[in-house]
Every structure is written in C-alpha cells, then in structure tokens.
C-alpha cells in the first residue's frame, strides 16, 4: 500500500520534471522570436541594441513599423510575393492533381515508366539547373519578370506522388458507376473524384505555399530588379546592406515578413504538421 503510494508520487514528480524540461526547451526555442518582436518595438534599438537584453522595450513604439511600412518597398515586396505565391500554388496544385489522378486511376501504356520519371525528378536538385534555366529565361527575355518563378512550378514530383497515393485510397467502383452512365474521363475526374480531393488539395496548397513563399535562391538569380523583389529577397538585401546596425528596423521587417506563415501555421498547425510529416521534406 505504502509503496504504491510512493510509486505514484515518484511518477508524478517524473511527469513534472519532464514537463519542466519541455517547457524550458520551448522557451529557448522561442527566445529568438520573442527578442525579434521586442526589439522591433524598441525605438532606441536603431542606435545600439538594448543591452542588457529586455523583453519589454524601455520606450515601446510603433516607430520602426511606421518607417518600414512607409518606405513602400516592403508593401511592394509583399504584393510581389503574393502574386508569385498564389500563381505558383494554383498551377502546381492543378497540374499535380491531374497527373496524380492519371497515375492512380488511369490505364495507359508506359504508366510505370512515366511514374518512375516523376519520382526521378525528386533526385534533381536546383543547383545544376540554375544556369541553364537562367539562360533559358534570358533567351526568351523573361528575366526580371515573375514568369521564371511561376512556370517551373507546373511540375512537382513530390505533390504528384502524394496525390497518387491519395487517389489510390479512393475506390475504383466510383469510376465504374460513372462509366456505365457514359461519362468521359474528364467528366469522371471533375464530377466524381475532384470533389473528394479536398484533404489532399489542402495539404498541397499548404506545402506549395510555404515552399513558394520561402523560396530564395532561384528568385535571387532571376530578379535583379529591386522593384520585383519578393519578401525574402528584400529582407536579405536590407540585411546585407545594413548588417547589424539599425536593429529596430531590421527586426520589425523580419517580424512582418514571417507573419503570414506564422499566422497560417497557428491556424492550420495540425494540417501543416501532418503535411510536412507526410512529405518528409524540409520546410
């Protein structure tokens, strides 16, 4: 009797210990964000960073945000990022749905080989394609437009793969019923399967959105015109220009730039975590 009581107590202490460790580590991981937000509201941080560090600014102010937004470049970058991201997401999700469906339900020659090619694209990183793609878009005079960022998103091996797996789980009997009614393949897809594809479409939108919004290397190569810079490009060029001076402004800028993803994440965290675990790809 006594030993079970002390066992229970030991168990409880253990649980509290674990909880504390988890909490401390969580605070450590969040500290850079907290500091970023705090410095962003600190007017004096543009002269020297607040030291010793404090969570609540001495003179809390919206000054930094005012400057960052007034400047207009950030808003322009936001508009650019929105154009690129929304177009890329629409294109990549549509084409992946079509291809994934065909690979799941279609019966045609060379299906296996073509699917292997799709999986093969997963092995091709961006770097060896950088220069040829640059030359390709240069030859059709599309550098310093959004097309080089939007058009290549028409192919996404990972999303096609996820899509195929999703459609594989849906029964073929749905097709057969529609086929007896004389519906063509496109009709069957749009009327029968597309309405059922909500969950996988949501996953793909989330993944494609994060990839596109955070994309850096390729935009850096094709967008030399500052007016076309996306948010990460603007952020990077601002930071490379100013280094660690102008802390307040830089942190306000960083805060505003991560905001869309963080808000999206907080609302959809369950789906996002699932999606990323599913795709196994670094965010």
């Amino acid at each position: 009797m006594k030993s079970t009581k002390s066992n229970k107590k030991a168990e409880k202490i253990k649980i509290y210990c674990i909880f504390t460790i988890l909490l401390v580590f969580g605070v450590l991981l969040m500290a850079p964000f907290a500091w970023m937000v705090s410095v962003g509201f600190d007017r004096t941080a543009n002269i020297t960073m607040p030291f010793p560090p404090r969570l609540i600014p001495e003179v809390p102010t919206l000054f930094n945000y005012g400057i960052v937004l007034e400047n207009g470049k950030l808003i322009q970058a936001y508009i650019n990022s929105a154009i690129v991201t929304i177009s890329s997401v629409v294109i990549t999700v549509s084409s992946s749905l079509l291809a994934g469906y065909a690979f799941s339900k279609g019966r045609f020659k060379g299906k296996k080989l073509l699917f292997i090619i799709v999986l093969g694209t997963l092995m091709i990183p961006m770097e060896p394609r950088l220069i040829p793609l640059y030359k390709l878009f240069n030859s059709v005079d599309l550098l310093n437009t959004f097309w080089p960022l939007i058009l290549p998103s028409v192919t996404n091996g990972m999303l096609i793969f996820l899509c195929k797996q999703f459609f594989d789980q849906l029964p073929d009997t749905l097709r057969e019923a529609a086929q007896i009614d004389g519906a063509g393949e496109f009709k069957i897809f749009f009327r029968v399967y597309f309405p059922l594809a909500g969950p996988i479409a949501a996953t793909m939108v989330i993944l494609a959105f994060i990839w596109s919004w955070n994309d850096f290397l390729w935009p850096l190569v094709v967008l030399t015109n500052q007016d076309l810079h996306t948010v990460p490009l603007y952020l990077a060029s601002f930071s490379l220009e100013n280094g660690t001076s102008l802390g307040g402004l830089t942190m306000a800028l960083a805060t505003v730039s991560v905001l869309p993803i963080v808000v999206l994440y907080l609302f959809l965290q369950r789906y996002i975590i699932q999606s990323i675990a599913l795709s196994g790809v670094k965010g």
Partner: protein
Amino acid sequence: MAKNHMEINANSDTITGVKLTRLKNKRSQLVWYIFLIPSFLGILLFMVYPIFESLRLSFYQSNGTIENFNGLNNFKTVLTSGPFWNSVWNTFYIGIFQILITIPLGFIFATLINSTPRGQSFFKVIYFLPNVTSIVAAAIIFAFVLHPEMGIVNYALEAVGLPTPKWLADPSTSKWAVILLAVWHWIGFVIIICLANLQAISPDMYEAAKIDGASGIQQWLFITIPNMAGTFAFLLITGWIGALQRFNEVYVLGGPNGSPARSIQTMGAFIYERGFTGFEFGVASAATYIMFMIILVFTFLNLKISKMKL
C-alpha cells in the same frame, strides 16, 4: 457450304468487334496522356533539358554569350581550386555537426513529449514553429541573437560564467553560428518525424516486455531503438542531402563569398559566386555537376533505405 459461309461471317463480325474495342481502348488511353501534359511539359523544359544543358556547359568556357569547347579543363579548374575544397569542407563540417546534434537531441525531446500526459500538441506547435519560418528571416534574427557584444546568447553565456565567442565575427567560430541556426531550424522537423514514428510502435510490444520483466531502459534499448532505426536512417539522409545544398542562410550571413574569410562559404555559395557574380558559367556548371553526383549517391541510398523501411 452455307454453314461455312455463316461461320466466316460470324468470324469477321467478331474481328471487327475486337478492332472496335481496341480502337476505343486506344482513344480512352490517349485521354490519360492529356492529364499528364502539364506536368511532363514542365519535366522536359525545366528538369531534363537543364540537366543535359548543364552537362554540356561544363565542357565549355562560357560567359553566357561566347562559348568555347574546353574539354575537361573546367573540372580541372574546380578540382584544383582551393576555394572549392574549402567550400566542400565548410559544407561537410556544418552538415555533420548539424546532424550529429539535431537527430539525438530531437529524438530525446520526441521521447519526452511522448511520455508527457498533458500538452503534447502544445509542445509540437511550439517546437515546430522555427521550421516553418523562412531560413532567410531566421538567419537575420540569428545575426542579432549571436551578436558578440549585444546578443542574447553571449549575454546568457556571460551570466553563467562561460566564455563568449565572437560567433560570426570570427572565422574560427562562424561555422558554429551557422550550426546553431541550422539546429534551431531543423529540430522541429526531427521531433515531428520521430514522434510520429514513436507513436506508430505497437503498445503491445511494451506490454509484453513489461510482463517479461524488462526494465524501462531495456524496453528503450530493445524495442524503441530498433523500431526507430528506419526513421533515423531517413532523417540522416534527408538531413544530409539538405545540408549539401545549404545556401540561403550562409548567403544572408556572409554574402556570396561566405565571409568572414570564406569560413562559411558552402558548395552552393561557391557555385553562386562563380556563376552569378563572376559569370563563369562553365566552371560553375562543372562544380554543380560534382555536387549533383555527390547528392545523387545519397539520394539513391535514401531510396534504397526508405524502400526497406517506412
């Protein structure tokens, strides 16, 4: 005779019937290719063509307009270039330590989250947040967090009496600044993957072990670890492939040449520097091919392993 005739008639009937269904089959097959057109146009134009063009370019001296055949000279240039091997060293150094720290640490925290009865989803959300924020923004935040005089990390180190490194201001510690950033950014991913796989281990196994009198440590050693081997392999290889391609954060922290003193210039940054600040397309292409081959080896390994497990 008449009977024969009838037979022939019937025969030709079935033949036309077969032909018709075949024709129909062919038409219904063709429809499927239409579904694939967008994706495969993209594959041809943005994957297949660039890969071959890049291979061709690696044998040419090129600045984008003038091209001269150069044989293997570009590869020679790259393989005898000090900065290239320096960038390989930096890439490997940062990658190896990032992985050696993050996977065990992430696994430990996944185990801890798994054994806490309350707040599991809360911790998941918190720990995963760094991974969804862009590495560019994260790098900028870390430039301040790791500021030698005014950063919070050195403030904390000093408060507990530890030495305060100069981080990004000193070539001998700058790689560790990048490693710290990389660990911070990747650990959420490792935790989520570990946690998902930990929770997929059947509780029956632990029940059976308990009945047999296995201690907690024995259970961990003989059930948890073997069951997680596939997950570790997956994380190891995807992490390594990602590490080989590291560019964004070192570009933000050190520019294309990875300052201070090229100490954080990765292979990706070397390629960017040669290709897009020096416009030596041939040399850069040769370098990308060397990098591509290295990555390919590890991707193959990944496919082999993930087919066996996961």
